[in-house]
């Protein structure tokens, strides 16, 4: 099921619409910051900007691009303040390349797919056990390395990689199956 193209005009419509890009916006912030807490803060700040400056949005133009611009700007602000006073450890050129790649590839259409996948993934993940969900959270959300997970769970690094890989495969299959059932294709 595809999300219809949005063309919001009123404040309520705009606010409602930007939330449909939540996952993609979080991705835009996260890829630059590589810190979930900071990425979420950026997203929250961006929502405040939207709530305050919704009149600046030109009806008919891309709401996605407008929102992305705010998010990326805010993320860059955070990065700059984070880097202030510190010796530069981040490869600025790499970040620029990454940002450009994501900007070019994670477009509105992909954002819609991501949002749809989010819903389906919730259903698929409901079928996993607590250990699997916990492992995914530790890896993807808490960003613990496979080495750290191996130590915590008393398994080898390869075993953890294998479990994660199987979980990914299992979830990808589940998503594909459910979307096909619903008549939506990735």
């Amino acid at each position, binding site marked *: 099921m595809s999300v219809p193209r949005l063309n919001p005009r009123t404040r309520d419509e705009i*606010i409602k619409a930007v939330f449909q890009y939540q996952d993609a916006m979080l991705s835009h912030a*996260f890829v630059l910051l590589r810190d979930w807490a900071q990425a979420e803060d950026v997203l929250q700040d961006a929502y*405040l900007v939207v709530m305050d400056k919704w009149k600046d949005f030109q009806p008919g133009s891309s709401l996605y691009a407008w929102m992305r611009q705010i998010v990326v700007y805010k993320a860059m602000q955070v990065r700059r303040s984070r880097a202030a006073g510190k010796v530069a450890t981040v*490869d600025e050129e790499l970040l620029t390349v*990454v940002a450009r790649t*994501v900007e070019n*590839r994670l477009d509105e259409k992909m954002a819609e797919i991501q949002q749809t996948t989010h819903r389906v993934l919730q259903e698929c993940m409901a079928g996993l056990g607590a250990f699997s969900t916990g492992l995914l959270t530790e890896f993807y*959300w808490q*960003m613990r390395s496979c080495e750290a997970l191996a130590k915590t769970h008393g398994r080898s690094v390869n075993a953890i990689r294998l479990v994660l890989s199987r979980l990914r495969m299992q979830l990808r299959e589940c998503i594909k199956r459910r979307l096909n059932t619903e008549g939506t294709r990735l």
Partner: protein
Amino acid sequence: MNEELYEKYFTNRLSREEAENLKTLLKSDAKAQEAFVAYLMEWELMGNVARQFLLKDNVKNKLKAQSQKHRPLNTKALRVAAESVRRRGKRKNLKSVGWLRFLVLPIAAAAAFMFFFHLHNLRTSKIGQVALAAEVVGLSGPVELVREAASVPAQVGMRVLQGDELKTGAAGRANLRYPDGTTIELKEESNLALLKHERAKRLALKRGDIFADVAKQKPDESLTVVTPHGEATVVGTQLKLAVAKEFTRLEVTQGKVRFVNLDNKYVYVESGNYAVAATGVELEVKPIVVARAKATPVPVKERYEAIEPVSGAPKELMLDLGGDVKMELVLVKAGEFDMGSNDGEENEKPVHKVKISQPYYIGKYDVTVAQFRAFVDAAKFQTIAEKQNKGWTVKDGTWQEVSGVNWRNPGFKQEDNHPVVVMTWGDAREFCKWATKATGRTVRLPTEAEWEYAARGPKSLKYPWGDKWEGIMANVADASLRRAGFNMEWGEIKEDDGYPFTSPGGAYKNSSWCGAYDMAGNVWQWCQDYFSDKYYGESPVVDPQGPANGDDRVRRGGGWASAPGSCRSARRHKLYHCDASTGFRVVVECGSSRHP
């Protein structure tokens, strides 16, 4: 192969050489670009959805706990309390435009339209800006005013304009006043921004607490408080808005408030109702169950009997400690249980039958910072740690006696609804004496037997929730404490609850059979008894009161720095001094005097 490279990018573990490889790939290889973005999307979804699953239960539990109790709302990180009172007619409103309104009166009807038009423009331009700016009218501790990226120390009399941001430090507070009489108190470690708007007051609370008394606003110029979970629009009502990390709760006591969540769903919450906005939770209006405090002092007997009927003991008891501070207690029915354990320490042996002959009430939660503050303020009391200007807390990874540590400053951040700590047994007893006077009930520390019975129940469970240890059920020394630098000798605990130190009462779904929370973990709790490791061999069967004398007092339940083994309900511990992991809860005797 590339996936490992991507993974290293997201976890900040790329070597210089790998970073170069990634750059080259992303610059030149369209497939790699596609794969990288797909990997990013997958990463975001996996992390986000998996986290939601884990949070969902936690949030629901917290919401359930919130809906069942009446007390200052749960706060971990953010809390807003806004009150708008319907007595605005008496207030002098917006002096700066008052004279303009006065002038309007004699204007002829023919000219009225033009004048109003002019007035509107005036108000929304210059005068509007003045009306929508606030003035700093009170300060304590460090407070920073941020304007256009520049930051200056705030001062009394300073004007806070739209677009400005106020930041309070650990010991900083600020009071703001708008020209229409609206006042806002910004509490410690808070961050409040005045958003730009032509006509209305709009506030964004990013962190910390505010308390606001909001003058009546015009319907189209309502005051709005934006929080991380939604926004509440205030026109002229009496309400409380509380923001915790995972949810926002709105309670309305007068009028009606429009409450919008992040899904842009909204409800109108009317007087006597509340609503909660949180991820994955349906936004709906529910009635506030517990009776609210009355504005004027009520005689002790009346305020007590209003909650507890004379005949029969209700399951819950609410004590009014004054100053809008209350304490919830739950009924523990009389009965029998097997006290002690043959599998634990020597001093827990032998297991013996104990009969509790009378029902009693026990604190639903440990005594909180707010409740203890009510006592300290009313009785002008100083704890031993305050007098000695030192207390035991965790510093540099180990327990140390640290100068300046006391219940107000235990060495870590405490909210009002966290359990009070760093107090001796004697400090706790003084609280009980005061509470007895203040409420007209007999308030005291539980005996060891009463405490253990409330934790284990007639089935003599090993832990308050059952016979099996579950790390997610109690605030103990876990990964969050290790992260805070604590040296845990007993090895890795994988759970990470995000509370390295104390947690708010009710944060865990760990109530015992009678409905008391945190009988395992969070803070150790003082009992009335002296400690004796031989006592169980000689204690009476009915209502044991502990040895007649001794050197140390008993504490029970384990705390935030304890290993799981210390949270067994039969585990006994003794302590002489006070520390940052020890607090207490009280009991109230059923049928105790209702007169002051």
